[in-house]
């Protein structure tokens, strides 16, 4: 035990020499979180120009609908409508200062009142089919509200909604939890590399190969320290999320540490193989860090996956992050115990054990090979 403690203390000193790498789990996730908060945290209303040429009153009622119909996303209107004349609107559209134009014709009120096929023109950008889709389905929300406002006959089918919880969660908190898990993983990966770098530079791997005792004495302190720093990085992220967005796991923090820690152990097992092989040291570091970032994107980092698991590709399920992310969101965002806790725990333990076993066995075999 004393030997482990000595090694533990000696490894600990590495951080003093390279604090930036020790916080490798902080810098890239922080940049990613800030970028996504700016991207999806602001008002996501579509900027459109409304050209109201109507000589009656209903064009104005329609215009008001743009400000009155509220999207659940960021609780703002679907459209950020700006009144313009046709020339201004076309100019802004061509310069992409607005995403679309609604033209309400001069006879709009007359044709609505007389029931003579009232029509509107909607210009919109369709450079990507997702935004084009939004233009089309947002317009349905506007017309629905407009019909209700002008007292049209009741629709043949009303619509109503029912939610499982009284609160709604926006995009940024969902992404922020994904980033917290990424932080734990990257923190662990970078620390494994920081803890093996000294051996690479001073060619100490040969001494490891000649060591009379089991290499587990060398590897276990590195694994434990990397895991601790990964968890510290992730916990710092949780504090940021709490202060910034207002979500904190409370008593469930142990659940967060357990699930994210097991996920990190999977990555540590992969990283340690490259970390102690000098020939592929940096290539391994780059490959594993980039893979972890890719897994963040394809493994539910940007959205809940439990409800459309069928859209998740098979390769995403090969990484523990995909299994862990929604249960972690349950703990952090909703302060509830995940319904699939036991199954998730079993899978993550399996990933961690397999990765560490093969990672450490391969590393030990390569270190022992002295040719």
């Amino acid at each position, binding site marked *: 035990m004393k030997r482990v403690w000595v090694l533990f203390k000696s490894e600990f000193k590495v951080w003093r020499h390279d604090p930036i790498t020790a916080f490798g789990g902080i810098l890239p996730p922080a940049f990613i979180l800030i*970028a*996504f908060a700016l991207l999806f945290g602001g*008002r996501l209303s579509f900027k459109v120009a409304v050209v109201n040429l109507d000589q009656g009153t209903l064009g104005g009622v329609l215009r008001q609908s743009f400000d009155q119909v509220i999207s659940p996303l960021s609780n703002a209107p679907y459209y950020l409508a700006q009144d313009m004349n046709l020339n201004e609107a076309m100019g802004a559209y061509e310069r992409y200062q607005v995403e679309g134009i609604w033209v309400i014709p001069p006879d709009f009120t007359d044709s609505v009142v007389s029931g003579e096929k009232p029509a509107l023109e909607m210009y919109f950008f369709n450079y990507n089919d997702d935004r084009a889709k939004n233009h*089309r389905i947002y317009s349905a929300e506007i017309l629905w509200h407009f019909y209700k406002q002008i007292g049209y006959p009741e629709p043949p089918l009303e619509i109503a909604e029912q939610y499982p919880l009284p609160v709604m969660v926006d*995009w940024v908190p969902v992404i922020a939890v994904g980033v917290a898990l990424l932080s734990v993983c990257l923190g662990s990966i970078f620390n494994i590399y920081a803890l093996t770098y000294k051996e690479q530079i001073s060619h100490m791997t040969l001494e490891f190969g000649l060591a009379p005792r089991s290499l587990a004495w060398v590897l276990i302190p590195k694994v434990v320290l990397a895991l601790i720093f990964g968890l510290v990085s992730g916990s710092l992220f949780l504090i940021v999320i709490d202060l910034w967005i207002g979500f904190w796991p409370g008593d469930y923090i142990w659940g967060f540490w357990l699930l994210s820690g097991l996920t990190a152990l999977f990555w540590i097992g992969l990283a340690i193989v490259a970390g102690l092989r000098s020939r592929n040291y940096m*290539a391994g570091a780059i490959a594993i860090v980039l893979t972890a970032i890719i897994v963040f994107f394809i493994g539910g980092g940007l959205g809940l996956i439990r409800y459309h698991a069928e859209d998740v590709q098979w390769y995403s399920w090969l990484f523990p992050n995909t299994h862990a992310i929604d249960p972690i969101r349950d703990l952090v965002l909703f302060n509830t115990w995940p319904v699939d806790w036991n199954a998730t725990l079993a899978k993550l333990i399996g990933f961690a054990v397999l990765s560490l076993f093969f990672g450490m066995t391969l590393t030990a075999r390569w270190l022992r090979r002295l040719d």
Partner: protein
Amino acid sequence: MKRFTLLLKNEFKLFRTTIPVHLIGIFQPALMFSLMALVLVTPTFDMQVARSGDPLGDDLIRAMEQVGSPIGQPYINPILVESFPGQEIQGGQLIEFIWQAERPTALQRFGLIDSNMVKNFRNRLTAAALLLWNESLGDKAVVIEEAPWLPRDIPYSVYFGMAMMPLAANLAASLIGAYLSAQEFEFKTIIEYRLSPVSMYQVTGARLLRLALTGLLSGLVLMVVIGITTGIWPVSAGWVVLILFCVALIGGCIGTLAGLYFQKVLPAFLVGLALSFFTWIMGSAFGLAAGFSGPYEAVSRFMPNTYAVELLFPLYYQVNIGSRLPAILILTFACLLFILATLITYWRKVLVVRK
């Protein structure tokens, strides 16, 4: 010039000593696009509808099947399911046909509270219910005459891939630049540069040119992957090369600056990585910057990727958004600024001898 050519050749020979690093730097963005393109949002959503004996329920299903783009994909794939009390909601939501306040109602029961998904499901149901309403109104129904910008809706993966090309160019140049520059300090080979009579302009120029070409290669690999997977190619490969070269040059400068400052491989790599992803996400990665919030657009104006995407856009979509000249000037200015910063830092960190 001969000396510069020799330096450049030497830079490229370094490739042999770090083949895995180069291969990963060059090909990883293309791999990332290939994997991410398969999980990108698609307009068609599966929506579960509880089976009902009422004819209105059948009408709703028919209307749901009609909601979609006339020049693209359908937006709803209705899936009929049996419903029962206490049922767990699969797929995010379940639409049940009920009577509420003596009115027939489509009750959308959500199994989630993710505001973006709620919005998406809600909008689709409203669009289907509006179709029924319009049918019942006959000539009183308001018709929206669509005038889309392009003759067909372009899949999101095309834009996403195009906006990822500057990331590919930047990331490869930045990571390899950080690695090579920091290694010079770790292996003490920086002393040779320090003692060399060759001007710093030639040494730095050869390094940056080689990094820019490496980044450019990564961007072009991604261009080929996008072309193969989507069938859409830029109208001018020459312009693509010029634009990506500029971005790669900036990436090479960022990597070299990180290496010169930190003089250790891992922190230099870390900084290069973080900045590459930040400039990508902030540089119109998920849509043209002007289409997002004011603060996002304001920050994105400081990202070279934003201008690169604006210049790549007409090459892929064959339509202009405003004038290209400001983007060309800003990108050129950014290149010159980063080269200057790299030269000054090289002079301070390598040539100035500290006592």
